[in-house]
């Protein structure tokens, strides 16, 4: 299991002198046959700082459940609110609350990150307090790119912007260079401060600053970022007049192929569903089952250097690279 603080059941595999592998006694535990070496390696190479848009009224109702579930898998997480709360903790953006404040909060949040945490991550993810993210799968999407490329990813929508823009609720992630250009866009007044539509305004700024709207779909062209809950995408039949059909940049697929096995996000996720999705993603499985879809690491992954967090356990074996090519 990937090193989240709550998980002590980390499988240990030891190399003997002859190169044969023995399982140490710690492996006789619940996640005992689990081998997370690829996830551990990519954790160090694709560092994601997650920031969650929330507010004082939602800390106990919503943000708390994000904190207890998916945000633990980020390299770093910051909860952004209109006001400081040292107990939760949240960073105060010194704004008001409300739908019309969303873009202003977003601008302030990204500026805060650029000022205080620019060198601590490679990618900067924005999510709502009702967005569920599978961070390990986001790392796979990003693994084919380097943080110095001006690019951002999310659920791509089409109208109003030539290269499209990313849905706010489904979560979107900026490369380090994209963040730099976003902040620069405001410094030079290329990007405007006023908008009631956060995600569109951000998309328009990105376009003006030469940041590419990336294709986040998996290798079978299935979507990974989703603007609704799994049930809607998997079983829902959208009416022909529903706005969604016109908004999606890529063709809409209904039924099981709506969604990649390695899905990255869902939106409008209730507290209960946060835990259910965490259970489905990280715990419940079919023993011995050979998945149909088995993508490997992308070709550009080899270019990425490893970074050690201060929070990382020591002893993560970096000479695993050669081994990784064989196991993936």
């Amino acid at each position, binding site marked *: *299991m990937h090193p989240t603080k*709550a998980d002590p059941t980390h499988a240990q595999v030891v190399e003997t002198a002859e190169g044969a592998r023995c*399982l140490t006694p710690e*492996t*006789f535990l*619940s*996640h*005992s*046959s*689990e*081998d*997370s*070496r*690829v*996830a*551990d*390696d*990519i954790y160090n190479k694709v560092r994601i700082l997650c920031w969650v848009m929330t507010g004082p009224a939602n800390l106990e109702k919503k943000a708390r459940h994000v904190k*207890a*579930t998916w945000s633990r*898998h980020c390299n770093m997480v910051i909860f952004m609110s209109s006001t400081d709360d040292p107990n939760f903790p949240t960073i105060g953006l010194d704004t008001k609350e409300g739908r019309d404040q969303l873009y202003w909060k977003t601008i302030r949040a990204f500026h805060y990150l650029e000022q205080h945490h620019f060198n601590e991550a490679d990618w900067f993810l924005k999510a709502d307090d009702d967005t569920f993210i*599978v*961070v*390990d*799968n986001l*790392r*796979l999407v990003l693994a084919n790119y380097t943080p110095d490329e001006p690019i951002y990813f999310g659920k791509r929508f089409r109208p109003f912007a030539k290269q499209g823009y990313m849905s706010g609720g489904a979560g979107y992630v900026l490369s380090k260079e994209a963040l730099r250009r976003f902040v620069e866009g405001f410094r030079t007044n290329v990007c405007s401060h006023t908008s009631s539509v956060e995600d569109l305004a951000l998309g328009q700024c990105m376009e003006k600053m030469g940041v590419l709207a990336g294709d986040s779909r998996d290798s079978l062209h299935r979507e990974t970022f989703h603007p609704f809950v*799994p*049930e809607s995408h*998997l*079983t829902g039949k959208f009416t022909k007049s529903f706005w969604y059909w016109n908004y999606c940049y890529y063709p809409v697929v209904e*039924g*099981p*192929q709506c*969604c990649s*096995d*390695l*899905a990255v996000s869902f939106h409008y996720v209730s*507290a*209960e569903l946060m*835990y*259910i*999705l*965490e*259970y*489905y*993603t*990280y*715990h*419940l*499985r*079919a*023993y*011995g*089952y*050979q*998945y*149909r879809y088995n*993508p490997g690491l992308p070709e550009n992954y080899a270019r990425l250097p490893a970074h050690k967090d201060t929070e990382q356990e020591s002893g993560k074996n970096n000479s695993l690279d050669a081994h990784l090519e064989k*196991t993936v």
Partner: protein
Amino acid sequence: MYSEGGSFMKGMLLGGIFCIVATLLSSFNFGHQQHTDHHNHHHVNAPSKEELLRLPEHKRIELSQNIRVYCVILVEPKELAYWAAVRETWSKHCDKAEFYSSEEVKVFESVSVETKDPWIMLRKALKHAFDNAKDHKWYFIARPTTFAIIENLKYLLLNKDPDQPFYLGHMVKSGDLEFIELSGGIVLSTEALKRLVGVLGDSSKCPEQGRMIWKLPEDKELAVCLKYTGVFAENAEDTEGKDIFNTKSVNTLINEAMAETPQEVAESCCSDVAVTFNGHSPNNMHVMMFGVYRLRPFGHKFHDSLVFLPPKDSDND
């Protein structure tokens, strides 16, 4: 004359009451005599890593292929939406899935048992299963409101001999009777089913109308009949002691964990290798199918001792 008649009536009444009580007691107490030869383990565990590693590699592969499960799914026409969901989801992972319906339905294939009585339906379905599926080693009985993960069932059954009498699932104690709740799924070994079929024809032990004056639910009737043949219910748990057959839905179990252990809800609510959940809507079953067979975090592999391939002609797993 009059006083003699009165005594006679009192005698009749007393005798009648005594008769009823004796009948009741004998049904419940029957189990006592058998208890002394009851095999000790009351809980059945999924095999631990140590147990699996003791089996040689070729044996494990052989087991993956040979451990065959016949699914007996008891449906009614009014449950068409659930029936459809089960057909489209988990039943595809049974080696053989047969739907036993109270009456024939145009839309879906089924074996009609031509009765609405749940106990008679179960009896007929099991007799039919026994007669038609002799090369299957294990029988899994479910209602369409249940979602089952057959691979995890096979993992549980891996090191168990189907020629021994096993009757497993979510066990409940009701008075003196220990039985497996149908809503969590019932597992019978070949031997257990053979013994049951052997006693179905004996109306003193296992009558169609049940042995009680009032009707027992069919899962209790089953337990009573099986007890006559020396087959006893056992609860199934994983290596951490968590139930793997659940009579509740994931939603219910998660909500309970949110109240009891809010700091580790997904970790503690349920087993990682759960076999069943009950009470999910048809749509939720499709979500669970995605959650079990597809959704996972990249970069984590499992070195499992069994190998199960995806079924043909399916795209939601």
